[in-house]
């Protein structure tokens, strides 16, 4: 690395090395360690936002993973975060439900708002926050219990005991996750016996069973085969009618298929953010164009 002053991010080295050398103002500025303001299209700004990051930065110990990210996430839309490995996409969505609290030595600055209130404000009810923000992980993580018990887990831990209510909400969640027909005859069997794709849809059912406002998805298809991926993608579009979805993906075709809006991140900065069609077909910045056409990253 020839330029001093930018050593942030665990994977920044590879990503930067693969980046084009000249003619890209934003990447040049990032390399010089200067603050960067991303291009956010007005179509995004016009949308009513559920989540809003404002000048949001995050450090893992001494290394900075997010640099003053400002982005609104529109209500009842699918918003995709794309960018090369280590660009901070996962870090960013894991701040919305404060999953990063689990990591030692994490420090944040700026605001991360859910419906206008800062989730990092002192005294925030983190458990209440996580009830409002569902999350689906990279690897399906069904609990070692029956399919039914998995789906109603969030309801049970919040004190719902009524059998009929649990049964009804389990069915609704499983239908919502397009899994009902496949599992309705074996709800009492272990969830670990399901295929990978079914397990991931079960995790989606579990995440929506408690009726969250927002659904975070951290590369939900990266461990799935193509057919399962397709089904989960259909599902993502379906659930966006009722939930705001923020999805991290490595796969640009996936982003273009499932999302309404796409944000391109690079080295912990938001570079360009707009309607998905614009980002993929008519990006405003050369960096974005380079990335979505697969020339680096």
């Amino acid at each position, binding site marked *: 690395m020839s330029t001093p002053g930018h050593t942030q991010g665990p994977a920044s080295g590879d990503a930067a090395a693969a980046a084009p050398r000249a003619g890209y103002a934003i990447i040049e500025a990032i390399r010089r360690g200067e603050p960067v303001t991303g291009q956010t299209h007005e179509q995004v700004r016009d949308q009513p936002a559920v989540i809003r990051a404002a000048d949001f930065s995050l450090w893992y110990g001494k290394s900075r993973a997010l640099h003053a990210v400002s982005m609104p996430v529109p209500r009842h839309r699918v918003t995709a975060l794309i960018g090369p490995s280590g660009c901070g996409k996962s870090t960013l969505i894991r701040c919305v439900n404060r999953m990063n609290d*689990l990591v030692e030595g994490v420090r944040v600055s700026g605001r991360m708002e859910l419906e206008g209130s800062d989730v990092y404000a002192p005294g925030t009810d983190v*458990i209440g926050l996580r009830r409002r923000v569902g999350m689906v992980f990279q690897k399906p*993580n069904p609990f070692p219990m029956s399919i039914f018990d998995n789906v109603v887990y969030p309801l049970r831990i919040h004190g719902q005991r009524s059998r009929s209510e649990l049964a009804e909400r389990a069915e609704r969640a499983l239908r919502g996750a397009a899994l009902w027909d496949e599992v309705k005859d074996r709800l009492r069997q272990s969830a670990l016996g399901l295929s990978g794709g079914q397990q991931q849809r079960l995790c989606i059912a579990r*995440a929506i069973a408690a009726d969250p406002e927002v659904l975070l998805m951290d590369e939900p298809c990266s461990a799935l085969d193509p057919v399962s991926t397709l089904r989960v993608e259909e599902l993502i579009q379906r659930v966006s009618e009722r939930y705001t979805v923020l999805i991290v993906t490595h796969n640009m075709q996936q982003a273009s298929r499932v999302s309404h809006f796409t944000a391109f991140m690079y080295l912990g900065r938001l570079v360009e953010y707009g309607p998905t069609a614009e980002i993929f077909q008519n990006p405003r910045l050369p960096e974005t164009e380079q990335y979505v056409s697969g020339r680096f990253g």
Partner: protein
Amino acid sequence: MPPSKARRSGGDRALGLLARGSAVTILGLLVALLATLVTAGAPAAARFGASFLTETEWRPNTLERPRLDARGEVVITGGEVEIEEVPPRFGALPAIWGTAVSSGIALLIAVPLSLGAALFVVRIAPRLRVAGPLSFMIEFLAAIPSIAYGFWGLAVLTPWLQTVAYPAMERLAGGTWVAGWVFRTRLADGTEIPVGLTGKDMLCGGLVLAIMVIPIVTAVARDVLRSVPRGQLEGTLALGATWWQSSWGMMRYARAGLFGAVMLGLARAAGETMAVTMVIGNNMQVAASPLAPAQTMASLLANEFKEASDQLHQSALLLVALILLVMSLALNVTARSLVVGGSSRTAAAH
């Protein structure tokens, strides 16, 4: 073939043989031990059969007593009381009972404490930067020789129980059924007498054992909990689980391994000899009260083996040793398969 290569392959072969030989020797030792115990215990097993496990009388001496007739009168022949000889009897039930109760008390105390400590080490200590020192301390506790624990039990715990704890418990229990169970005991003829509170009893043995098994159960439970995939913990937390709910989720995921940890603790408690012998009271009886002196299988062996001159007595003791060995073996095998099998199942599922 160049000579150096030939030498090396010769050395390889020798080392291979050595390794194989070592493995076979160790296995052979176990088989030899089992064979010895089976052979030595055979006379007692043949004599008493299954009643060895159910009889409560353990009497190494021949008893001489006046012969009674059918009406219960002393039989007198030629002006002299007729004497009959009752041969020694060996029933191991008191030792099995003592082992079960003292180990049970130990687990009752040790399991919750160990699980709590393991959760602390896995989930809280890293944040406070005390996980390393704490783990070291736990492992250090496991390395303290058992006689040290026994001596502490004898010198500190026993007098404290006898003079402070038991009187207080007796006042608290008052005239309730608890008092009847804990502080009274029934003799063979049905009369009820107070338990002699010596402080050397199954409760004291159980307490000392609890302290001794906490390190091993904690250490294994800690490793088992650490091997729970991150996705499981994050999965529960992301759904809004509290600290306890997510910890419960981890324990549920790791339940086979945790059960294995408890089994290992049980194996250690049941086989522990020195410390228990010092504090259990060494009395071959089956008493309901945990405050009654008792005997465990291991303490029985420690107490009697060097004085057992009679063949049948020795055989009976070795049969007890065989039962203890088989039991420990079974517990250990179960525990290991649960701990190891538990984590491989984890790997397969994720």
